[in-house]
């Protein structure tokens, strides 16, 4: 059920991003798509590890996974958002 909900949420977010870019007449570069894919993979991997470690009664390890994958996901996400912001700023000009 968790993965179904995650999948639907990701699907909607992905769709919303596509629709938003089309509405702004914005072409999102391939690099940004790649960075967002990396972010999603990191988030999903973090969730999988967190859940699995808790199921294995390794609560301490599960808690430590959160910052590890959090940082791993934050870096490409920040870069992607920065590149998007820069592109929208240029588009406005």
């Amino acid at each position: 059920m968790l993965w179904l909900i995650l999948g639907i949420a990701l699907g909607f977010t992905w769709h919303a991003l596509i629709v938003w870019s089309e509405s702004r007449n914005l072409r999102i570069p391939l690099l940004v798509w790649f960075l967002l894919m990396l972010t999603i993979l990191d988030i999903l991997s973090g969730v999988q590890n967190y859940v699995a470690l808790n199921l294995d009664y390794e609560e301490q390890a599960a808690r430590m996974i959160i910052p590890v994958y959090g940082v791993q996901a934050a870096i490409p996400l920040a870069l992607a958002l920065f590149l998007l912001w820069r592109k929208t700023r240029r588009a406005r000009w």
Partner: protein
Amino acid sequence: MPDITRRQFLRELGLAGAGVALTPMAAAALSADSMNDEADDISPAKAAPRPSWVKLSAKPTIDIDWTAMQRFDERNTCRGGLVNYVGKDTLDAWTKMQTENLAQWLKQGKPGYTLRDVALQAASGAGSGAQSFLGPEKITSPQDRGVPAWTGSPKDANAMVTAALRHLGAATVGVVALEPATTEKLIYGFDPDGKELVFADVDQPAEDDKRRVIPRKARWVIVWTVQMSEETLKRAPTPLAQQTTTLAYTRNRNIQLRLQTFLRSLGYMALGEASTNALGISPALGVMAGLGELSRLNRLITPEYGPMVRVFKLITDLPLAPTSPINAGIMRFCQECKKCAESCPSQALSMRTEPTWDVAGPWNNPGHKAFFEDSTKCRETWFRAGTNCGRCFAVCPYASSSRALVHRFAFSVESSTARFNSSFRKMHDLVFGKAQANLDPVKDPELWWSLDLPEYGIDTMQGRANEG
């Protein structure tokens, strides 16, 4: 907000749903044993898929000099032969110490040593079938049923035996072919009760007061593992943890008896352990059968369950296909890791980086390169703790379920290269705690009683291709 028609919305929803549904299936296909699939190899993978990072190997990951090896006398191990190495006075003193420690800790209510813990320990040793070399006396043979003995290809026989053993409670199954110059030397020369194990050109096995006779036509050893509860053994060295070891042995008495009944009912002989750990060197046979690798623990470490298994064997004349040894980078990781040795309360385990041919004492079997241990020191800790310790098992990085991707990733990398082994060891220390050589349990024994553990405390889907 841009206009989206209902049709567009539903189309996008369908695409998203298809992606959600198909992604797990794609992931499962990628992680299955398809990467380990070789058309003509005979491996446990054919009957029971192995993790994809396990590679088959023509020889085990330790060096063996079969010419230097003899069939070992089991009475020379520290199980029955300890008094010969430490002397009666020392052994008596250790026994007194054990009795006093257990009584004191029981009264104090020391976690893991409380009344309910020792009661569970007593329970785990109760209620098992008789263990014998020849198997049950009365069997309905194929002839009694008016049919010939079962026949089939060795591959089919492997698959059949594996299916039966799994159903009876075994975890992984492999086969070793007995060769006089090599693997036959892994069968004991003398069993723990002093009876000699003799290979002879006879038609039927036999047993009397002095000998157990193995017909030369019984050329195959079925080797299997029985899981211990990893979560329970992490409470080592308490009685609470010990009972999972005892339980594995107890369960196996029934497994062996039933396997003997199964094979004899098919029309074949089934020569089992006459007593605990009899017949042959279990870890060695497990290595040769490809169930795992030898390790710094000097016990088998399996890819699926780490060291959290007990290994058993049985000799048969049912033609089987030998299964290959494996290389999963485990022994190589042991060279770098050393966490078990650093955690040993009595420093019994070897701290060498490279394995050696030099044995630590007459309790070791020469003829292979290993991290030989001082078993007398190990036994001293057993008496001090009042149990069979097991702390080395509890701290092993391979004693981890493979559900979390981070574990699978680490095992996969360790299987391919040793470059990151020291980093993995450091990460293990960071997350699970540094090595400490004491008698403290790795996990809280009191907490164990509130866990919702599966039957026998084991996950029977762990290590399977379709595990969750």
